[in-house]
């Protein structure tokens, strides 16, 4: 079965406040970077999986993201899939 690697990006929905992002923006302003606009902080997840096909892997990842890796109430996600060379 082919191996895939996935890079998953979980971001806050635009309507959800990100106080951590605001705090980091103020930190950068203290460094002198007053030119930096609003900051949004998200999560980056890497995983590998075995699946019959890229479509199957993609379908499984959608379910993983919808049910656990992201909370659709407050977060969006996207992912990139890459086929790994089999040994």
């Amino acid at each position, binding site marked *: 079965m082919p191996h895939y690697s996935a890079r998953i990006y979980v971001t806050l929905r635009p309507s959800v406040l990100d106080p951590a992002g605001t705090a980091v923006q103020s930190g950068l302003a203290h460094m002198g970077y007053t030119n930096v606009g609003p900051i949004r902080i998200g999560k980056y997840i890497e995983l590998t999986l075995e699946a019959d096909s890229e479509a199957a892997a993609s379908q499984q990842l959608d379910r993983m993201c919808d049910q656990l890796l992201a909370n659709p*109430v407050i977060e969006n996600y996207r992912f990139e899939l890459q086929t790994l060379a089999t040994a």
Partner: protein
Amino acid sequence: MKFAVIVFPGANCDRDVAYVTRDILGQPTRMVWHEDSDLSDVDIVVVPGGFSYGDYLRCGAIARFSPTMQATVEHAKAGKPVLGICNGFQILTEVGLLPGALVRNRDMRFICDRVPLKVERTDLLWTAGYTAGQVITLPIAHGEGCYYADEATLAELEANKQIVFRYSGVDGSVDEKSNHNGSLGNIAGICNRAGNVLGLMPHPERAADAVLGGVDGLPLFESLVRSLVAA
């Protein structure tokens, strides 16, 4: 009435709840390890506060998959009472028993305080012991207690009177000044449409014994037991 208190790795308010239900109210109480999937012997399930599974990924995200939580969903679907306090509230939103989500407090701080709350509904088995519009004081202790839901969900919560507790002033005024964590609508606690599932960020179990400086949480547990006995 028999209580179940779920014990997750990282739960830290489970014994506080059991102290209230078992020692103060004299009700049989079973501590249920999160891997136990049988809740058929209990009347009320309490999902306590703490940091279940270290709150990894998101608060309550991992806990929702535990066998006991699956049994708790069945318990709730059968119309039986489920109470989620603090981390328990977060878990109930993650598992889908309550709408919305709890996100990082607006001002980034972990808040540990005693705050006034307005009781919005007294026709629930949880709140029959309070008077309409009563302002009570309960402890809060959370870093992620800012209630969020999309506009449609919020409108639905208001229309169905699912908002049970709001952060307020001591006079019952609900405004930005009394909103400690940035929750939409000053929401501190909500129920599902049927009213048998309640989730709240404040800790009624920490205000049920006068020795701790307040007893405003006790009527919640008392009215619950009374309502169930009468039913």
